[in-house]
Every structure is written in structure tokens, then in C-alpha cells.
């Protein structure tokens, strides 16, 4: 993996504190991700996985022939993912610690489904463009790019998406060769608490 190096970890948490497996992860999260388009046997990328709130339900759906690659630049949470996976006897999660780079060592058209859940607000416009382009490269032709957009106008804390509306976000993703497909509503996990929300799904347009 190559590219930028940004350190964002915090000095205030000990990696030995592990978040518990929540009921949402093994039940409602599974239902939601099925509705969002994840299917058995698929190859999934969870970019910015943190404690694995979406990694776990995705791994439950894809079962043992599928795999979830869970990437984060902050690996203090990987123990929690391992622990939850052990409890559920899941052997199909591969955690990868990066240095924040946006280009990956994955082959072209490798993934069936890419999750960018509650993570885009960490990246400025140029970085987001690099990430979309890279996602386009590694996503299968019939794959889905799924985004949980948070921390846009009016949603504290405001970071790199503070001035971006949903419509603008859709346009910037579409400008990288994707086509907006649908909005999927449901009970979502945001920062370990549950709220009604939605993700937006994109498919690849051909010839881009």
C-alpha cells in the first residue's frame, strides 16, 4: 500500500478496552446489509471499519466462502473485531492496518461490494476523488459502492464534508464513473448507537 501518511489515532484509549458484540450486529445489521445488496459468497471491502459495526454483519451474510476485508488506519479496534468474530465463529474477516493511503494492493474488479460508511468526512475533496477512482478500479462491473454519508451540513462534528450537501456528494461520486442507484433506509449504527438513517448505493457505469 502506498500514498499519504496521516496519523489520527488517539492517545486517550487503551486498546485493551473492547467494545462488546451488539445485538444489532448479528440481527438488524444483517437484515439491513442484505437490503443494501450484500449476498452470500461475496467479497466485501469495509473501508474505515473501526470496531467492525458493519464488518461483522457483512461477514455473517457472505458466510465462509465469502470474505470481508476490513481496513483502518487505526488498529486499536482490531482486537474488538477479532473478539466478536471469535464469538460468532466467523473466519472470513481480514483486518488490514494502513497508514491512511487511498490506493490499495487489490486486483482490478475484485470486490462485489464496497462500504464507505461514516468515513468520507475524514477526507478532503482531492482525497475523496482518489478514493472513488480507486474504488472504481477494484469494484466489479456489477458491484455496488455503498456510502453512509454523515457529518455533512448540520451534522456535528463537521469535518471535510461540512459544506457538502447530499446532492453534491452524489454528483462528486458520479463524476468518478458511478451511477446513483438508490437510497436505502433503515436502523443504522452510528458511533455505536442506533438511529434511523440511510445509505446511498452506486453502480458502475460502463466505459469510464
Amino acid at each position, binding site marked *: 500500500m502506498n500514498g499519504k501518511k496521516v496519523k489520527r489515532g488517539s492517545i486517550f484509549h487503551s486498546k485493551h478496552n473492547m467494545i*462488546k458484540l451488539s445485538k444489532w450486529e448479528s440481527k438488524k445489521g444483517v437484515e439491513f446489509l442484505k437490503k443494501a445488496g450484500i449476498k452470500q459468497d461475496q467479497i466485501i471491502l469495509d473501508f474505515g471499519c473501526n470496531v467492525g459495526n458493519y464488518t461483522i454483519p457483512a461477514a455473517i451474510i457472505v458466510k465462509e466462502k465469502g470474505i470481508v476485508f476490513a481496513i483502518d488506519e487505526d488498529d486499536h479496534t482490531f482486537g474488538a473485531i477479532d473478539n466478536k468474530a471469535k464469538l460468532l465463529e466467523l473466519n472470513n474477516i481480514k483486518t488490514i492496518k494502513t497508514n491512511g493511503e487511498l490506493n490499495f494492493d487489490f486486483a482490478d474488479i475484485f470486490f462485489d461490494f464496497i462500504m464507505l460508511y461514516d468515513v468520507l468526512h475524514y477526507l478532503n475533496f482531492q482525497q475523496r476523488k482518489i478514493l472513488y477512482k480507486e474504488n472504481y478500479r477494484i469494484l466489479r462491473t456489477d458491484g455496488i459502492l455503498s456510502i453512509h454519508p454523515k457529518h455533512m451540513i448540520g451534522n456535528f462534528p463537521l469535518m471535510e464534508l461540512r459544506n457538502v450537501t447530499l446532492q453534491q456528494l452524489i454528483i462528486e461520486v458520479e463524476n468518478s464513473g458511478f451511477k446513483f442507484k438508490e437510497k436505502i433506509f433503515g436502523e443504522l449504527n452510528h458511533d455505536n448507537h442506533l438511529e434511523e438513517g440511510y445509505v446511498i448505493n452506486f453502480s458502475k457505469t460502463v466505459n469510464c
Partner: protein
Amino acid sequence: MNSEAYKNQVELNRIGKDNFFKTNFQSPIPSEERTKFTKLNYFDPDLKYRFELELEESDHKEKIKIEDTGGNLRDFLKWGKFTFEINKQEYVLFAYKSTKEETRLFVPFKDATSGKETYGAGRYIDLEEERDKIENKWILDLNFATNPWCAYSHNYVCPLIPFENILQVEIKAGEKSYK
């Protein structure tokens, strides 16, 4: 070290930590409590609890299991021990790593304030080589002792304190009970 400068340094760290707990998405404070949350409780910074120590590294890094509050047994390596004095009495704390490759030392402990002014299940210190080691000495500063996150929310599981790290002395430094 000048005690006023030291106090400021500790207090600055505490302001940063309170801010993290109030606003960061990784905060262990349940979201419904965060609007009310202002700050954590601490003993006043006291240089008497700050030590610069050599770690007496174990020749053979014994593999041990530490139970956590969820009943799981977690693997640790007993990496070495720190010996220090409080009120002219010698005490020992063991430091652990979860893997050989790890650069952090984990120093969980209980003391005579546990269950009274401080959290009953003990407190933790994480030492980071880059930040807490000067040449061959580690800075073991008990003013930075923190509560396990189980102290704030039922959503966490945290390692319990190994018997060998229970100190028979009051450590009136670091974080106090949350509520």
C-alpha cells in the same frame, strides 16, 4: 522538573481527554449521557507519583491469561517489572504486552483507593515507547492512571487486574471514579 509546569502539562492532557470523551465518536460515554458530560474526576497532579524507571525485563516472557469482565481469557506476555518507592516503601508493578511485536506496555493495577475514591475494578496505564521512554528509562506516571472503559459503559469488556498488580498502598493520583 518544575512542579507548576508539570501540573500545567497534566491538566492540559486532562482537558484534551475530557474533550475527547465529550465529542469524539470513539468516546466510551454513552451518547445519551454526552450532552450532560463535562469532565472526568481526578486527583490533583502530584510529582510524588511520577517515576523514571528502568524496566526489569523478564528473561523468559511468561505467557499468562488475564480474564476480562466478559469472562474471556486474554493472552498476555509478562514483559517485566517496575520497582518504585512510595513513602520510603518499595512496590512492584508488572508490565504486560499482548504480543512480542507490540511497542506498548500495559500496566493495570489496583490500590488501596480502588472501590473507594477510584474505580473498584482498578485502573490502567498504557506506556508508549515513543512517548514514555527516555533512553533506557520509562516514565511510569501514575497521574495518568485511567479507568477501564467498563467504568463508563456496559458496552465494553476490559481486562481484570492480575493479582500480582494489587498494591497495598493508596495511589492518590490519576483518575477517580466516574460517578
